[in-house]
């Protein structure tokens, strides 16, 4: 819990064996420690005990007094002088368990041959271990219409349900989304939704995973495969920086399913629906499958690897160049880009921030973020969690679950620096404040979680960097950013957090890389690189790895038009369309690698699709560098990982902290409003392409305005607003909330509201709001 006091240990005897466990341990889990598996359905280690299925009945005796009836071992904590007899030593417990199993199956359709769960089903397995060979029930089974869509993602087969309430307990206790509940009674009891309120939880997929039967199935996996045809590989999630362990299931080279992996210190056993169900992009028809080279005719043509590499090398050699690295590269790939920029291109012009960014942020990252060590465990122990320009439910869902867990368990305080209380903030009972200096009650046990959007408010990261009491964490949205920061894919940092400006830091790297010198000028940022590329006398070439220009600014794509572009991409995109050389790279399931989650914790993963022909970015960069005769000598992911590890981290002087003062408030008048926005978890992100079931549970696009503005405009909830600048406009239904009268909130990249594409800005710009 909150303090690290010694836990009282209790010794009990189970089936004749002594086991010593912490006080409070349930019998069923104490038995597990002895390797004694008591059958169960409703029991789940992360959910509050229910005692509903009664499958885990055992005989219990305390101080020589036996309970007259067998007890549910999932509900009773161990006590001193307790003697437990499970099905292994008690005929009563054994008969009780067999009896329950028989009862559970009387209304079960036994349609295992067509059930997704068949082959990995706790009911099936335990019916084999604990059931009878044949049922004595010869009557009429309860039947239901099947299946029911309880959301666009989750289907419910009520006939198969054993009513263990794992799904409903998960939704209420873990996700805080009690959209499903048990209805009716007796044998007609069933999981249900309120008809007007489907199961639109960001975490609904977990219910499918923890369902101990085939009652809940995922729409996108249903009837696609049998578990025994799948090859499973432990993986890490590429969607955000939360660092979820995943399991990727592949059949004949195609990713069919991803499940949450178990990692008690990170994602426990959960993940979000995006991490679970957004992977079709990997097998999309839009994948780049061979190198492409732009010919004399101005069109892209398929080319051999040697031809494409030669063309790329020739175009880059001797040019003033910049490197734009997407936010989802692995540490190894980021290290490849970092070394490639310095060694092959002789520049520090490299930036992993393909999003709004500032120099203040670069200083914050290099001085502060790169060495932060706050972890999930600090959240578990926090007395107060502060969210700074960070919406965990949308931007790092597992962080949300972790904070929510402590809000439920210990009622910890949560303060959010945000324009208004989002649904996630409401679930966290968060106090909303409009700026960081209004946050009160910070102690050394408090945790301040800073989102990447903090960069969008001048002075905010300077204030964070100057804060000394609470623990600070920087939580970028994308999975690769913390790793790219560590690998030095930033203009002011070399690998291992070494400042470019520090001569001895450069010497470190020079000697490790065996080069004579390293560039000394601080590199340009993403926006500066783009600006320079489109300026005569500026940069002449760019290496672009997995960047969507629309994430940076409305002008970014245009700035790449008249320059030599080498694009490393998994799929055809706006950048490949204008690139001179396109080199296909491996998607996350096709390669091995490491992400650093927001904690800086390494999340290693192996290649899930065996024999994939695509290669990781670092391998391709190494080949280009060879072709340029400026080798970076990183022929494999393993070699990159080893070399980066051998560099160690910098313990010398850091870059100075930023000291930017906050900007004056923008003044608005009339129909003007200041735009504020963030990305919702499920939106138009390119990695969610083609996931229609997932898209069905996206939160509706709304424009949040204050009641005063609504009154002034004469609009009610749901009335349409037209929000415009001279660049464009969107028309979106209004939602009235406690937001400042000057502001309007829009989703940053959702259906019908893409602020960067439409307005060229994501935060802080003036828009005009009128009734549509």
């Amino acid at each position, binding site marked *: 819990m909150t303090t690290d006091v010694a836990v009282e240990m209790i010794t009990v005897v189970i089936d004749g064996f002594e086991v010593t466990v912490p006080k409070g341990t349930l019998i069923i889990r104490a038995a597990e420690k002895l390797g004694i598996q008591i059958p169960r359905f409703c029991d789940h280690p992360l959910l509050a005990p229910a005692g509903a299925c009664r499958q885990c009945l055992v005989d219990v005796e305390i101080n020589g007094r036996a309970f007259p009836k067998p007890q549910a071992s999932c509900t009773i904590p161990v006590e001193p002088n307790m003697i437990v007899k499970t099905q292994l030593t008690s005929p009563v417990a054994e008969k009780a368990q067999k009896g329950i199993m028989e009862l559970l199956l009387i209304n079960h359709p036994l349609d295992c041959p067509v059930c997704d769960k068949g082959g990995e089903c706790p009911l099936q397995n335990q019916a084999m271990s604990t059931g009878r060979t044949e049922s004595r029930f010869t009557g009429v089974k309860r039947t239901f219409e099947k299946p029911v869509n309880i959301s666009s993602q989750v289907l419910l087969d009520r006939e198969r349900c054993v009513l263990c309430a794992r799904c409903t307990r998960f939704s209420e206790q873990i996700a805080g989304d009690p959209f499903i*509940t048990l209805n009716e*009674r007796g044998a*007609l009891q069933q999981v249900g939704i309120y008809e007007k309120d489907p199961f639109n939880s960001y975490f609904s997929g977990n219910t499918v995973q923890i369902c101990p039967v085939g009652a809940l199935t995922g729409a996108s996996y249903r009837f696609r495969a049998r578990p025994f045809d799948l090859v499973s590989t432990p993986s890490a999630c590429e969607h955000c920086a939360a660092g979820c362990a995943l399991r990727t299931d592949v059949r004949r080279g195609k990713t069919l399913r991803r499940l949450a992996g178990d990692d008690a210190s990170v994602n426990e056993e959960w993940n979000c629906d995006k991490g679970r169900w957004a992977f079709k992009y990997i097998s999309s028809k839009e994948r780049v499958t061979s190198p492409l080279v732009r010919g004399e005719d101005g069109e892209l043509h398929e080319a051999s690897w040697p031809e494409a590499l030669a063309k790329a090398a020739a175009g880059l050699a001797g040019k003033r160049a910049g490197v734009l690295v997407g936010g989802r590269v692995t540490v190894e790939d980021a290290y490849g880009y970092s070394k490639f920029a310095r060694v092959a291109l002789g520049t520090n012009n490299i930036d992993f921030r393909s999003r709004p960014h500032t120099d203040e942020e670069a200083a914050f990252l290099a001085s502060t973020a790169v060495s932060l060590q706050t972890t999930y465990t600090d959240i578990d122990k926090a007395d107060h969690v502060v969210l700074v320009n960070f919406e965990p439910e949308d931007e790092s869902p597992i962080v949300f679950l972790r904070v929510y867990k402590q809000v439920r368990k210990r009622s910890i305080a949560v303060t959010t620096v945000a324009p208004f209380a989002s649904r996630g903030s409401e679930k966290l009972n968060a106090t909303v404040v409009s700026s960081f200096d209004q946050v009160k009650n910070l102690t050394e046990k408090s945790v301040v979680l800073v989102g990447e959007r903090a960069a969008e408010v001048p002075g905010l990261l300077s204030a964070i960097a100057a804060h000394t009491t609470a623990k600070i964490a920087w939580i970028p949205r994308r999975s690769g950013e913390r790793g790219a920061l560590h690998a030095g894919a930033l203009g002011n940092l070399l690998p291992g957090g070494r400042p470019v400006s520090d001569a001895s830091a450069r010497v470190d790297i020079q000697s490790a890389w065996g080069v004579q010198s390293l560039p000394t000028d601080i590199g340009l940022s993403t926006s500066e690189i783009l600006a320079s590329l489109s300026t005569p006398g500026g940069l002449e070439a760019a290496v672009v790895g997995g960047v969507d220009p629309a994430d940076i600014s409305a002008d970014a794509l245009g700035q790449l038009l008249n320059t030599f572009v080498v694009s490393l991409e998994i799929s055809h995109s706006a950048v490949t369309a204008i690139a001179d050389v396109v080199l296909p790279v491996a998607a996350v399931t096709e390669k091995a690698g490491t992400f650093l989650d927001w904690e800086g914790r390494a999340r290693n993963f192996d290649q899930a699709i065996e024999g994939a022909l695509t290669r990781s970015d670092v391998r391709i960069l190494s080949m280009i560098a060879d072709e340029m005769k400026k080798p970076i000598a990183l022929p494999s992911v393993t070699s990159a990982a080893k070399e980066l590890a051998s560099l160690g981290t910098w313990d010398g002087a850091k870059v100075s902290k930023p000291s930017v003062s906050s900007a004056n408030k923008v003044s608005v008048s009339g129909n003007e409003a200041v735009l504020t926005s963030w990305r919702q978890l499920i939106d138009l992100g390119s990695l969610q392409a083609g996931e229609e079931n997932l898209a069905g549970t996206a939160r509706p696009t709304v424009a949040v305005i204050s009641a005063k503005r609504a009154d002034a405009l004469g609009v009610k909830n749901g009335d349409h607003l037209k929000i415009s600048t001279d660049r464009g406009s969107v028309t979106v239904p209004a939602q009235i909330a406690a937001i400042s009268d000057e502001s309007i909130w829009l989703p940053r990249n959702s259906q019908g509201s893409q602020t960067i594409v439409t307005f060229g800005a994501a935060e802080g710009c003036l828009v005009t709001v009128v009734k549509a």
Partner: protein
Amino acid sequence: MSKLKPVLSAHWDEADSFTLEGYRRNGGYAAVKKALDMEPDAVIQLIKDSGLRGRGGAGFPTGMKWGFIPQNDGKDHYLVVNADESEPGTCKDMPLLMANPHSLIEGIIIGSYAIRANYAFIYLRGEVVHVYRRVQKAIEDAYAAGLLGKNINGKGFDLELVLHAGAGAYICGEETALLDSLEGFRGQPRLRPPFPAIAGLYARPTVVNNVESIASVPAIVANGVEWFQAMGTEKSKGFTLYSLSGHVKNPGQFEAPLGITLRELLEMAGGIREGHTLKFWTPGGSSTPMFTQEHLDVPLDYEGVGAAGSMLGTKALQIFDETTCVVRAVLRWTEFYKHESCGKCTPCREGTWWLVQALKELEAGRGTSADLDKLLDIVDNIAGRSFCALADGAASPIVSSMKYFREEYQRHLDLGSCPFDPIASTLFAGARA
């Protein structure tokens, strides 16, 4: 008639027994005065000393239950009255509330004062709208008379009393399901611990008592422990309401000291209906194992009934004469349990589903004696395996009927049909043309 001891029912025959005036005329609300002059702990001690035991079925000592409430814990405490009377055959709380609602209200004031509760709730089964209206009126009158609300009797004690109508679920008579239902959730039993005395309604220390238990409190306070202890048997003190129904000449409520026998009650009820003999009966509703002729002299107190292999339960004596098919009666009860199973736990939910089908087959005479053993084995897998006692209740009639009437089950199978004429057991049997 000397066996009767009407206390709660003493004035039921007066036209205005249910009114505040009628109640007061017969000494009502004197006990509140007395209790509010005592220390709360002294009231708890008085009830402990009296030996009053819960009249809802389990017979748990009422004073001890009150004593479990942690005092001076700075939390709100609640008294909840279980008026969800739904046990088949039970009809004591509803007539009591119709004829004498103020005895309950007075008991609630005293009980709340004792456990330091400023809020009390009556959870009434929703179907009995007439009772609801009567209790509601009585509460209004009590408020108007200053017996509820702020500063009761000028003694500085505040009590708000809320009457809540349930939505018709037997399971809500189970105290934790009742609390969930009262909080607005579906009525399903809660995991214990925590027990209601520690975390009950809204997770606050809560006492849940039966209507009759609480309604008995004013008489005890008014008349004293010795008066109460003079009635009943060694461990089952006091008076109680027995409800007789079924094949008796004069069914109804009989208030008598605990320990009276069915033989004595039947005498007062005019005996079994004319020309018939007793076949089987339940001592405390259908959830208590049935008795037969041989149990006519079992003392109907907690120990006596227990020693004879059943439970006193709600003292709902359902009487069946020799025209009744025991298999059919058990099937009817089982259908009730299937309908009322809340669905939370497997043995009750699935078990009652199965039992109804199994009994239907047997009643129709389909099956072999192996099916009778199977029936007992299924029941063995249900009773004592469930989350709450509902499934135990469902098992009781089957196990006890098989114990006393197995040959009658067998007769169905031998004949291939039910040997009884179902009309013979009805009230309109003679009217058949």
